[in-house]
């Protein structure tokens, strides 16, 4: 029942998104069939998404039996290490935030250290050394050899 309810909400989501796209498209000008404006295709896409959402909702309301499509909401999100996922994504967003300010070398070192740090073994030295090697190696490849123009930040070099 939980999965069926979720599939209805999912359909509603696409209907709302479709409506929002139609509104945005209407704002940028639809034009006419003879002179189509920049919003015409987006408007059609919005309508299309609305229809898809409607089909999803109606198919859930009208069908008496639950169709097994191999998806179970309970199983899908069971036994997931959310902490690890959130921690990794936080490190990546942090990397994007501080890259220009701190520069490539320092930000990359901190990111690698954070990703390689083994919470079970708590081996700081090995993590630091590996991070240093990866940072140095990637700097050599991308900045020195491939001239990727990585951000300089607080260091006098890039």
């Amino acid at each position, binding site marked *: 029942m939980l999965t069926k309810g979720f599939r209805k909400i999912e359909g509603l989501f*696409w209907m709302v998104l479709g409506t929002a796209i139609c509104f945005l498209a209407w704002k940028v000008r639809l034009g006419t069939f003879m002179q*189509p404006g*920049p919003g015409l295709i987006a408007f059609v896409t919005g309508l299309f998404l609305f229809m898809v959402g409607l*089909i999803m909702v109606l198919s859930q309301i009208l069908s008496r039996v639950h169709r097994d499509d191999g*998806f179970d909401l309970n199983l*899908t999100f069971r036994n997931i*290490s959310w902490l690890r996922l959130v921690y990794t*994504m936080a490190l990546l967003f942090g990397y994007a935030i501080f890259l220009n300010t701190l520069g490539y070398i320092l930000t990359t070192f901190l990111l690698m250290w954070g990703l*390689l740090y083994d919470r079970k073994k708590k081996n700081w030295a090995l993590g630091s050394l590996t991070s240093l090697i*990866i940072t140095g190696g990637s700097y050599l490849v991308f900045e020195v050899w491939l001239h990727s123009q990585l951000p300089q930040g607080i260091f006098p070099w890039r």
Partner: protein
Amino acid sequence: MSLKFGFIANFPKEFFLGAKGFMNMGYDLFYGFGIAFQPMNLLACFLGVLIGTLVGVLPGIGPAGAMSLLLPVTFGLSPVSAIIMLAGIFYGAMYGGSTTSILVNIPGEAASVVTCIDGYQMALQGRAGPALGIAAFGSFIAGTFGVVGLMFLATPLAELAVKFGPAEYFSLVCLGLSVLIYLTQGSIPHGLAMAGLGVFLSLIGQDVIEGTARFTFGLTGLIDGVGLIPLVMGLFGISEILLNLEKLGERIILRTKIKNLFPSREDWRKSAKPIARGTFLGFFLGILPGGGAVISSFVSYALEKKFSKHPEQFGKGAIEGVAGPESANNSASSGSFIPLFSLGIPANVVMALLLGALMLHGLRPGPLMLTQHPEIFWGTVASMYVGNAMLLALNLPLIGIWVQILKIPYRMLFPLILLFCLIGSYSIGTNVFDIYVMLVFGVLGYFLRKLKYEPAPLVLAFVLGPLLEKSLREALIISDGSMRVFLTRPLSAASLFVALVLLLSAILPSLQKRRKTVISE
């Protein structure tokens, strides 16, 4: 070799494109070899197939992710070297993917999923050597024949495509998206929603005809639109890593001695027909918009099981179950170049990336590319012959090294992949905004995949969106706003009809069962 053929590339183009022009395929191929054997292009080819094999061997990063990662690296190369290298990654991954499927029971990339079934069983029975051997030889044979097919079909198709107008292009794009949605695993509404979202995302940024900015929400980073590379890296690279991070476990690598890499006479006898069938089938499924290596390998497996006198052996270590699919996925990878080079329409996500790469190098794939930039097409075709030979040499003697690479723990590997993704997305426009785009699509991709939404229709629709919009608007302007233009032109009408039939057949209950049978098989 490079000294012997290198001088050919310096000959004036007219020497090769004389009175009979491009019809003389022999000269064109000779011209292509002249380009492929230039030292820089040979190196690009070697690096491409080497990285491709590595990508194929390592689970967690597919050819699409690797190509988007390495795209910024190719900026310093000439367009032909860049395309040779990126193409090498693609067909190299098809070769490498079989190694992990056979030895670890984990497919290195999606097209090798089916190889796990019988390949791993063969390895358990102590026949890892013949399984790896037949996968490599089958891939080589199919890959080479696929290139021959590409050579013969792309030129006439491009000549035909010159006559296509906006209405035909619009209908072909609709057909491509419909085929992909039809063949995508999972529900049709999910595929349709992904395609719709992909088209909308492609519309963000400057309007292709009037040049006005739209749907940017005041973000200057979106004026040029959402970048293809950050989007692909997010949807395929970052989301894949997040899925793997959910449950970190050590891989179990089969501790077996790999011997007899050269299949026996009996193995060859059993595999000859599956290789031939896989080559033929894979090539034509590869051409199909929305088709490709993954689908062809599954269809080939189902076909071999049907043709076999002992279908009960499938799943228990039948060599035909390795030979057919491995040949099919390699042949399909060659076939999928045809719509890209001759029509400018990518058949799958990897081809969409190649299209992006060509455009970043200032080239527009399509029917005119073969006449305006023959060095790209013939250089790539010739390099594929060379690359296939390189792959055979790389895969068989170096299997021991690939197995060692598999032993690198994932907790050591994923930070490196993440770093490459970050540098790759930053380097395209030296812009942090692209990193944010990649991360947002990474999170989105993770949840989409958890909720059984396939990201492939989204990416293909994203790439085809601008062509869809441009051709629809141009067709409407030319026809004074009449929709009949799509139905009065035969090819356009036929494409739309097939697209409609495919979508209806997937929705109508009586035909739904048939589609499910096709996909499950």
